[in-house]
């Protein structure tokens, strides 16, 4: 148990330890300090990204201005995939090292991941209407994104159905890892299925190469999405930490300090 108070006390303050911040007690103030940089970075990057997206990037030759939804669509789709992998990673770490914080991090990431998956689907549908003439096609990427959204829902539903946090953590971790093994299989199965059916002749891979400013805008927005995700996950993980550790001394001290107006101490 690397996260018990005993082993936390054993960690020397001078040397760097991999598990120093694996304890909620030590991670809580660190997360608090990281919050503001995340919010500021998210704000600045969003402003820069949106400015590039709307004023710098040229109008697309074939799609007109409707392509500009790409600046939210693609970062959302990227984030939904990255967050699932991050979730599975933290779950695996939690199962291997038996660290409670890893599971907390994983469950803090899940709602944001589901949100990004939903945004990616929603914006994709809105983008599809003017360009393909339909809100939905059973394209490989759309379908696998939809299934990814269901995987997030399953993870969250399983955690919500179990009252004992220890069991909820571990059961959720197991399904997240099994899902992560399955994600590539799902993607390729849907891809091959789609090429066989050939229902619509829409291909997103044959789009012309992007203008540099478009790419810049998209990358800025993607970085903004990263900063937002990290920030919001830290807020959520802090809430989970306080909720789960409410009977411990450090939370009690924190709440006393909090009544004096300093939550980051």
């Amino acid at each position, binding site marked *: 148990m690397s996260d018990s108070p005993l082993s936390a006390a054993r960690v020397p303050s001078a040397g760097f330890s991999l598990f120093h911040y694996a304890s909620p007690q030590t991670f809580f103030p660190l997360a608090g300090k990281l919050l503001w940089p995340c919010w500021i970075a998210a704000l600045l990057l969003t402003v820069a990204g949106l400015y590039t997206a709307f004023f710098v990037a040229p109008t697309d030759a074939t799609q007109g201005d409707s392509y500009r939804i790409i600046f939210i669509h693609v970062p959302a789709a990227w984030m939904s995939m990255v967050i699932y992998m991050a979730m599975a990673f933290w779950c695996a770490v939690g199962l291997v090292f038996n660290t409670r914080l890893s599971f907390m991090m994983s469950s803090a990431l899940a709602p944001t991941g589901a949100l990004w998956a939903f945004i990616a689907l929603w914006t994709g549908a809105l983008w599809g209407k003017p360009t393909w003439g339909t809100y939905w096609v059973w394209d490989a990427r759309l379908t696998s994104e939809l*299934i990814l959204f269901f995987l997030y829902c*399953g993870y969250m539903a399983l955690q919500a*159905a179990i009252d004992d946090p220890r069991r909820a953590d571990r059961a959720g971790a197991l399904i997240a890892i099994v899902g992560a093994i399955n994600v590539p299989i799902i993607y390729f*199965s849907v891809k091959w299925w789609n090429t*066989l059916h050939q229902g619509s002749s829409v291909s997103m891979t044959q789009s012309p190469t992007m203008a540099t400013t478009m790419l810049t805008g998209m990358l800025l927005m993607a970085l903004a999405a990263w900063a937002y995700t990290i920030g919001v996950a830290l807020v959520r993980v802090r809430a989970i930490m306080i909720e789960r550790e409410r009977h411990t001394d450090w939370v009690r001290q924190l709440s006393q300090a909090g009544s004096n107006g300093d939550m980051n101490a």
Partner: protein
Amino acid sequence: MLSVFVSVVRRDLLLAWRRRSDVLTALGFFLLVTSLFPLGVGPEPDQLSRIAAGVMWVAALLATLLSVQRLFESDEADGTLEQMLLSVEPLAVIVLAKVCAYWLLTGLPLVVIAPLIALQFNLSPDETLIVCATLLIGTPTLSLLGAVGASLTLGLRGGGALIALLVLPLYVPLLIFGAGAVDAWRAGLGVQSHLALLGACLLVAFAVCPLASAAALRIAQD
């Protein structure tokens, strides 16, 4: 290890034999769901033969989902599961034996009865053979993945809907490869690739699912 495997399989088959109606429920469900589709989409033979493989596969998924959630239920109720967890034999082997028995009781009957439904859906003998082959390779994988879901949701409230949410996304590749085989055959492509992919899925599930299910059971009974 082999003896525990055999004895668990034999025990589960015997228990099922004593309560035959449980086994027949899943089969009846499979028959009923497939019979509903012609009523819903219309009885044109061409259309029916086009959707037959997909309908049979979806019905097989749902029938598995419906019955697999009771895989560990009675063992948990009468304390057998605790004995299995305490056993010196590897839990994964016991789980695998239970899944084997479960497949013999629910998966195999689906495969056996599939030609009858294929007849109702106006499939040619070749196509019927393909559907049966895909079901024969695919249903064990369904059972293995379902066992993971069953052990994760063991004893939870709302288990039925929850296991659907957990397991159905994982069933997607099987559905695609299974139902796609007939389409591929009609399109003049071979069915070997689809059967090989289903076999690959089975092997991966065979390697991963008993371990994952055993881990989930230990978590559930912690």
